[in-house]
């Protein structure tokens, strides 16, 4: 072993950690003392003025030393002598790592949020080495793997970072069309049939000009020179023309029909596959996308690709075949004339190539703008009540007008290029014809070719150039559909941020013990929950309390795995939920949300949404327990009553009870009530409360409630404040503590007092009782 191999940095490199940039390598090596080992480091990328600048913080088993920027001098802090603490904070994407002692701030370092995990790791290692036995130590249980390239956290079981993979895979636009082959493969035999039919029909269309040659040379020219017309010969040639026309017609019909059929199926498959994939994507994806955009992608983009395959690609294939065949025929008749005829071809190809790039980005833009127009619609139509209530019709019309105007503007720009393109191609064809005429007349005058040959050539190439003209159109449609395909593959390639585990663990039955280990979650640059540690026993009911924005719903979303934790882990019966198959895991969870969503369909269908095979008896039993049975019976068609898109015909409380019945029917082990009663009045709430009492029995329940009265039955209450747990305990304990919970409770009591309502509250009843 050489010296360098034994150096401390090398030891560290063998660990599964992001590698240090070579820039720092040599600088540090020389600075380390004997027996000093590097434990962790943070490459900072901002200076104190938040300007981008490289710096480094190194933690060793003896000290902390750092350099704020490349040119700054090294600074040291002996961690063994002083009582030091490291704190990290972040705001709007810039992190701040502070080193403080008991008296004051010693130093701070700044970094962009991308380095936050490295900073967290540094702090953890610091705590472990210099503050052993501290509470921080147990957090280290949740191990983390970082992408070595971009240093984002990798999900459990996933070896490659989705961001980096996508980066590598990005290809130029047109190639993306080849990826459509995945959808075409099932129809390859039919496609082959279509191709052979195309070959036949194209060949048939090439017969007439060929027959024009002998017709001219053997019939018409001799007649002009005084010979009589040979009727039998004319009949032969003309029937040949008719026969070719009929064959071309029949084959053309068969080919168009076959290929249209196939392309329609490919389009349908593509649409289904995209939608299926879309449904599997995480909540996060839907949060960042607009409905109109997604609808446009799945609807019109697939249709565009479909038309591209059935019409344009087919035409193009025919054209290419025709050009190849025509070239063959022309060369066989007269190589020199053929050469002259084909001369404009490369020029046109070159022209097409130049315009391609301009058009591609143009069409992508048109698509985006189009999605923008759709977005205005999908924003306003569901929110039409708000628009009307605030009398903002004019403004929305204006917004639509602006989007449309933008659309016009972009289209104008694209059309500018496009409008020049077609006339240029036509012009070149005319020039080409002229060249053939000149060369042909010269050859005829030299008796090198016959008039018939020239006629045939002119007939061929006028078709030929005509096709070139239409072929040039393929550029735009290819670009358009490539842009469409890209937008679809954007969805198809998107790796869910809650990925399916590679080696899933199967849990046949779960007990419902939920354990949150040092859970942190960050949405963008905003840290929503921090270092949550909590164990929920099977069958326990937990109430989550806190101001809005304190992270209650986020915690629930994390437990449901709508999002994955940024740091830490959530365990169910001791197993990380990231190692369970997503859908099976969620089957164990019953969720009742504040805004109960009803799908278009009957009430029975809505109740049995989570268990489509449920019997009528089951559905009714669930509805009874949810106290929904009676009001359902009052509806005109009972359980078969149709409810609208958002269940307009039903009141908030009624909808809520249907969604409770829905949760009851799947008989989940874990029940999550996210503000299940906050959108209804207190009387209805009591009804719902009764329904919930049925639901909660024997299940691990996590309830979020604004009204503290809803949580009377909870075993433990957990008070959250700005992403942290601040208090845990029963109602009595927390009241005795006279802190956060007490304040919340008092505040609510005052509100209820002013409303003049004392119902539903234990304490309120007691007071009344005492007075008696």
């Amino acid at each position, binding site marked *: 072993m050489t010296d360098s191999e034994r150096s401390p940095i090398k030891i560290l490199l063998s660990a599964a950690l992001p590698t240090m940039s070579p820039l720092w390598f040599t600088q540090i090596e020389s600075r380390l003392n004997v027996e000093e080992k590097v434990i962790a480091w943070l490459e900072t990328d901002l200076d104190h003025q*938040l300007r981008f600048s490289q710096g480094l913080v190194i933690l060793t088993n003896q000290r902390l030393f750092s350099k704020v920027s490349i040119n700054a001098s090294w600074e040291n802090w002996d961690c063994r002598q002083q009582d030091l603490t490291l704190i990290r904070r972040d705001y709007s994407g810039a992190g701040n790592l502070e080193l403080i002692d008991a008296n004051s701030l010693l130093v701070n370092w700044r970094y962009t949020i991308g380095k936050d995990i490295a900073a967290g790791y540094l702090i953890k290692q610091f705590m472990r080495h210099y503050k052993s036995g501290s509470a921080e130590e147990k957090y280290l249980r949740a191990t983390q793997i970082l992408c070595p390239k*971009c240093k984002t956290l990798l999900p459990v079981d996933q070896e490659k970072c989705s*961001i980096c993979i996508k980066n590598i895979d*990005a290809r130029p636009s047109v190639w993306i069309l080849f990826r459509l082959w995945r959808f075409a493969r099932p129809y390859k035999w039919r496609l082959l049939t279509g191709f052979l039919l195309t070959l036949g029909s194209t060949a048939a269309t090439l017969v007439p000009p060929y027959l024009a040659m002998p017709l001219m040379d053997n019939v018409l020219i001799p007649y002009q020179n005084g010979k009589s017309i040979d009727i039998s010969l004319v009949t032969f040639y003309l029937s040949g023309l008719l026969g070719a026309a009929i064959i071309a017609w029949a084959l053309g019909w068969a080919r168009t029909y076959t290929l249209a059929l196939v392309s329609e199926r490919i389009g349908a498959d593509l649409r289904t596959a995209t939608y299926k994939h879309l449904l599997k994507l995480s909540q996060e994806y839907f949060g960042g996308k607009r409905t109109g955009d997604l609808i446009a992608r799945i609807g019109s983009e697939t249709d565009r690709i479909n038309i591209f395959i059935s019409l344009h690609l087919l035409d193009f294939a025919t054209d290419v075949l025709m050009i190849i065949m025509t070239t063959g025929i022309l060369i066989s008749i007269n190589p020199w004339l053929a050469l002259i005829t084909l001369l404009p071809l490369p020029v046109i190809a070159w022209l097409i190539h130049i315009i391609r790039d301009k058009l591609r980005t143009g069409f992508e833009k048109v698509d985006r703008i189009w999605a923008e127009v759709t977005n205005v619609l999908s924003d306003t139509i569901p929110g039409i009540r708000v628009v009307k209530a605030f009398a903002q019709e004019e403004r929305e019309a204006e917004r639509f007008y602006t989007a449309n105007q933008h659309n016009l503007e972009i289209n104008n720009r694209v059309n500018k290029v496009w409008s020049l393109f077609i006339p240029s191609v036509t012009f070149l064809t005319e020039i080409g014809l002229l060249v053939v005429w000149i060369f042909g007349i010269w050859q005829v005058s030299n008796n090198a070719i016959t008039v018939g040959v020239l006629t045939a050539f002119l007939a061929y190439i006028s078709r030929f150039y005509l096709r070139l003209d239409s072929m040039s159109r393929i550029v735009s449609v290819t670009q358009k559909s490539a842009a469409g395909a890209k937008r679809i593959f954007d969805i198809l390639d998107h790796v869910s941020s809650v990925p399916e585990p590679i080696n899933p663990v199967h849990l046949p039955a779960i007990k419902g013990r939920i354990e949150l280990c040092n859970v942190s979650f960050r949405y*963008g640059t905003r840290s929503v929950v921090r270092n949550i540690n909590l164990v929920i026993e099977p069958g326990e009911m937990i109430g989550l309390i806190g101001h809005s924005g304190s992270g209650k719903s986020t915690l629930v979303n994390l437990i449901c795995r709508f999002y994955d934790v940024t740091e830490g882990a959530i365990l169910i019966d001791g197993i990380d939920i990231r190692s369970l198959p997503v859908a099976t895991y969620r089957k164990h969870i019953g969720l009742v949300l504040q805004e109960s969503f009803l799908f278009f369909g009957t009430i029975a269908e809505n109740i049995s949404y989570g268990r489509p095979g449920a019997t009528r008896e089951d559905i009714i039993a669930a509805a009874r327990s949810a106290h929904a049975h009676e009001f359902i019976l009052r509806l005109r068609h009972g359980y078969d009553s149709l409810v609208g898109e958002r269940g307009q015909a039903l009141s908030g409380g009624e909808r809520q009870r249907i969604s409770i019945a829905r949760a009851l029917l799947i008989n989940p082990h874990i029940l999550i009530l996210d503000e299940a009663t906050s959108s209804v009045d207190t009387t209805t709430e009591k009804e719902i409360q009764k329904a919930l009492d049925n639901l909660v029995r024997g299940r691990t329940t996590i309830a979020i409630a604004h009204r503290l009265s809803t949580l009377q039955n909870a075993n433990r209450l957990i008070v959250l404040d700005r992403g942290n747990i601040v208090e845990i305990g029963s109602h009595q304990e927390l009241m005795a503590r006279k802190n956060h919970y007490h304040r919340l409770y008092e505040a609510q009591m005052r509100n209820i007092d002013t409303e003049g309502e004392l119902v539903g509250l234990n304490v309120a009843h007691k007071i009344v009782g005492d007075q008696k």
Partner: protein
Amino acid sequence: MIQEFNYHLNRDVFGKLLCTNLDDQSQKSVVPIRTFPITAPNEGISLIDSQGHELVWINNLGELSNELRILIEEELANREFMPEIKYIYEVSNLTTPNVWQVETDLGKTSFILKGEEDIRHLTSMTLVITDSHGICLLIRNRSALDSHSRKILDHFL
């Protein structure tokens, strides 16, 4: 409502901004926040305490004494991080996701743009680009960029 009171600001040994109520001498550490960081950065500054409650409202930074204004501006500069793109060197690819090499008012940097939808229009000329880590980069006036940068940017609008 915010209580009107006389206050004084200073920095403590931990580098935090400390707000002293001159009426009752109570002290709280505060953080200044701009209410409209992009459209009106110097108007409407709020000083909030560590619990997130607003203590002091400042209509305009200009109405403060120099000493206070400098303290607040320092603290704001310390907290705010929204690099403003001045020049776009290159993008790795014309299709997203891609890596952007840019010059900002805070120096040269690069970021990953995940999709065109991460470029948002604040007004027709002001854009906010959110990178893969959620950091926001600002283009205050896209028409003020040079033609090279504009051309690149234009591909994604």
